[in-house]
Structure formats: structure tokens, C-alpha cells
């Protein structure tokens, strides 16, 4: 309860003017009238004690569209995470997607004596630098590719592309054999204890290896390592970069030249990279540096980009599918052959939507940004 009071203060939720703009721009509220960010805040603030549980809190996508539109930048997603933590502590059952496999995997990864074997995919020609204080944080891509094998998901392609780009840019880096999940999804679900266990284990591992800088290709890992770790654990002075931040200045200055690819592409701004981390230009600069590549924007892009429709391995239903189909319609209308995204989870969710449409849906190819940029080097 005390924690929630602090969150109410930190998220500026009392500044809400009741204007309803958050609800107008919220992609979930557009398809589900029962979901209303403004009323969720109002209902919770009106309660003196816990009262009845608000079941709609689990539908929020943490897409930050409401924060973008709110005149006071009320951090509604963070307020939702606090409400979820409160609800979870009271014994609420979460509706996990994928049979709860991800939640369980995150909990299994939190074990102290964990010794993963997660690097079998590493290409032989990748040059690792054991002495480097720069770490490439792989993320859960090896796990995603196994669990979403039947969707044709290949998020490791993006990781391999990222490593190739870093090698080509002569940025030395190391990889950890026993890196754990960053824990973002547990944090978003309200499982702070689970998140902290993973975060502490990772931070200890970073310290053991003398890591001073982290580069990652996953926007969620990026934001979590950069913002949530210092916020929840206290600062450790580790610089965190998204791959696009490491590569874009080099292609801009001409130090790294990319190849040629005659394609018409559109770019899906991942919510966590765009609205949440304010990285809009770097991915576009990389795409712009590939000769022959034509970037066309979708109707909603940059700050207004539409979410891929699902997050934190929570609810996934008709509403989420409607959002995804809306995004595909925008991609088709842009005339792009490839929908490029910088987030493995966007890739998973969009591929799932594409596959379940039985070939009647969008035919646009979905590809990771790093993998596309690396493909141009061949």
C-alpha cells in the first residue's frame, strides 16, 4: 500500500485532468470499450482501501501512447504495473499467454545454480573479445526461436546480424555464457520479486566480468538494463546502448558502409524503443544507409506508431488481433515489401497474426532491422 502511494506520486497520476485523451489514443480502448485508462486511474484513486479487483488492468499493452498524448505526461503504464503488483500480492491469478511458459522460464532462470547452454547457435566466424569490457546482451532470442519454431520466428537472425555489424564496425565485445532474462516481462506483470532476483543475478554477473558498457539488439532489454535496473537496484554506472545507437553514427560518418538491397521497406517503431526510449532516428539512419533501400512510412509512425498488439506474455485475444490486423493494413497501404522491426517481440506477435490469418492476411515479409542491414553486407 505504501509502495502504491509512492507510485501514485511518482507517476503523477493525480495530475490527471479527466480529459480522456489517453483513452482516445489507446489502441486497446479503440477495440475494447471496457478498457479505459482514465477510469482505471479514477476508480483506483477513489478507493480508500483495496476494494474490488479491477480486471481490466491486465489488458494494458504498456505501449506509452497515452503518455505521449497526456499533457502532463502522467506515466499511466507504470501506474498499471504498480496496480498489477498490488493485485498479484492479493492473490490475483494472471492470464498468461503461451500456457505460462515464459513466466515459468523466467522463474527457472532465476535459480542461483543455473548453468545455461545457450550459445550453441553462435556462428564460428563471429569474433568475440574476451578481454573487452563491452558486453553484447543477447536477450531471450535462443528461447524464442525454440518456442515459436512453428511460426517461423527467427529472432536469432537479428542477433547474428547485430554481431556481424559490430564485427564489421570493429567494435570489440564479449558475450556471457550464463546471461539471464532481463526480467522486464515479470516487472510489467507486477512480479517485482521475480524481476529483482533476475536483475540482481545479472548485475552480479556484469560486475564479475568487469562490464562497463552493454550493447543489445532487443529494445526491451535495452530499456530494462538502462532505466529499470538503476531505478530498482541503484546505479552501477554501466552505459547501455541499443545496437542502432552504436551503429547509426558510424554509418552517418561514413566509417561503416552498408551494402545494397533493392527493396521497399517500412519500419515498425517498437513501443519500448520509440516512445519509451525516444530512439526514432537511428534505426531510420541505418535503413537510409543501405543503398537501393526505399523507406516508406506507415500512416502511424514514430511517436504515433501502433503497437504490435501484445506485451509481457499476458492476455492475447481478439482485441490484440484487431490491433495487429490494423497494423498490417497500414503496412500494406504503404506499399512496402518488407516490414522491418527492431524488436524480437514485434516479430513474434506480427508473425503469429500473419500465420493465423491462413494466408488471407498481409503478405508483407517481416524482418529484423539488424538482420536486414547485415544481409546487405553479403
Amino acid at each position, binding site marked *: 500500500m505504501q509502495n502504491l502511494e509512492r507510485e501514485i506520486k511518482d507517476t503523477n497520476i493525480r495530475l490527471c485532468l479527466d480529459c480522456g485523451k489517453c483513452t482516445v489514443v489507446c489502441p486497446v480502448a479503440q477495440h475494447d470499450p471496457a478498457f479505459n485508462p482514465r477510469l482505471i486511474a479514477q476508480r483506483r484513486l477513489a478507493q480508500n482501501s483495496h476494494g474490488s479487483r479491477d480486471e481490466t488492468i491486465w489488458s494494458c499493452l504498456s505501449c506509452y501512447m497515452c503518455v505521449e498524448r497526456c499533457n502532463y505526461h502522467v506515466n499511466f503504464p507504470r501506474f498499471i504495473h504498480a496496480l498489477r503488483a498490488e493485485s498479484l500480492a492479493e492473490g490475483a491469478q494472471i492470464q*498468461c499467454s*503461451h*500456457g*505460462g*511458459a515464459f513466466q*515459468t*522460464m523466467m*522463474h*527457472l*532462470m532465476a*535459480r542461483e*545454480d*543455473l*548453468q*545455461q*547452454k*545457450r550459445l550453441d547457435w553462435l556462428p564460428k566466424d563471429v569474433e568475440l573479445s574476451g578481454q573487452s569490457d563491452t558486453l553484447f546482451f543477447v536477450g531471450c532470442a*535462443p*528461447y524464442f526461436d*525454440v*518456442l515459436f*519454431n*512453428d511460426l517461423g520466428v527467427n529472432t536469432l537472425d537479428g542477433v547474428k546480424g547485430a554481431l556481424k555489424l559490430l564485427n564489421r564496425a570493429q567494435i570489440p565485445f564479449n558475450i556471457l555464457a550464463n546471461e539471464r532474462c532481463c526480467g522486464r516481462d515479470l516487472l510489467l506483470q507486477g512480479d517485482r520479486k521475480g524481476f529483482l532476483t533476475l536483475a540482481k543475478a545479472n548485475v552480479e554477473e556484469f560486475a564479475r566480468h568487469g562490464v562497463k558498457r552493454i550493447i543489445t539488439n532487443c529494445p526491451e532489454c535495452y530499456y530494462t538494463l538502462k532505466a529499470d535496473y538503476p531505478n530498482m537496484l541503484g546505479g552501477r554506472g554501466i552505459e547501455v546502448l541499443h545496437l542502432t545507437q552504436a551503429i547509426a553514427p558510424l554509418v552517418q560518418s561514413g566509417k561503416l558502409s552498408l551494402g545494397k538491397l533493392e527493396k521497399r521497406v517500412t519500419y515498425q517503431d517498437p513501443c519500448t524503443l520509440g516512445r519509451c526510449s525516444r530512439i526514432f532516428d537511428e534505426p531510420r539512419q541505418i535503413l537510409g544507409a543501405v543503398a537501393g533501400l526505399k523507406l516508406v512510412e506507415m500512416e502511424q509512425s514514430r511517436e504515433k506508431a501502433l503497437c504490435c498488439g501484445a506485451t509481457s506474455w499476458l492476455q492475447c485475444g481478439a482485441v490484440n488481433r484487431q490491433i495487429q490486423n490494423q497494423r498490417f493494413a497500414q503496412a500494406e497501404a504503404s506499399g512496402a515489401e518488407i516490414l522491418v522491426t527492431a524488436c524480437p517481440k514485434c516479430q513474434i506477435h506480427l508473425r503469429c497474426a500473419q500465420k493465423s490469418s491462413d494466408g488471407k492476411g498481409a503478405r508483407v515479409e517481416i524482418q529484423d532491422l539488424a538482420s536486414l542491414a547485415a544481409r546487405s553486407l553479403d
Partner: protein
Amino acid sequence: MNNAMANVVVFACNWDGLSCIEAAAQKGLRYPASVKIVRVTCLSRVHSGLILKAFELGANGVMLLGCNPGNCHFEIDAGLIEREYEKTRNILGLLGLREERLALTRLPGGDGPGFVKRVTNFIAGIAQTEPATLR
């Protein structure tokens, strides 16, 4: 690790799978009491989330016990369990928990001795190479 202590969860299909376990009980055949049976309508109901949950809750091994191929009570066996079995094995491998901790066993209906033999061998296999990774 003592064989009798191995926490093994058996997801058994309600038809041929469970009939093997019942036959073993009727014949008074012995197997470790630490084996926990979870009865499911069909093995196709079991997915990676459930299997991994068993490991999270402290299982040392999970056995999926079902009907022989082509003998599914519901006539159509879409091969769902094979897919989930392969996926989960790979995940266990990535987690360093070893793929051998998951077994897919198919038996004809009423094969009590077959079940006891398989489950005992499975436990012996886990116990032999049990690292201290599980509770």
C-alpha cells in the same frame, strides 16, 4: 540422489496411459512412491507451459505417458504432443537442465509391467547424472 526420492511427474492420458498405471496397481507392481500421476484427457492437452511448471515446482523429471501412435481415443492425433515434447526438450537443454529429464512414453492399454519398467529406468537415468541443479 536416492532413486526413491526422485520427484517425477507423469502426465498420463486418461485412456491407454492411465490403464497401464491402473494395471500396475492391480497387479501389485512396485514403483517409487515419489512418482506423481497427473491424469489428463489426452496428451495433446499438455503443453510446454505445464511441463516447465512441473520443473519450476521442483520436479526432477517429467514423463508424458500416452497411447501408441494411431491408437488415440479421440481418433485424430494431430501430433501436438510430439511438437511440445521437442520444444520443451530444447528449452530444458538451453536452461542447462538436461533434455533427458523429459520422456515421451507410449504404451498399449493395460501394460502395467511396461509402465513400471519405463518409469523405473527413467528415474535411474535421471538419478545417475543428477547435478545439484534442482531442489
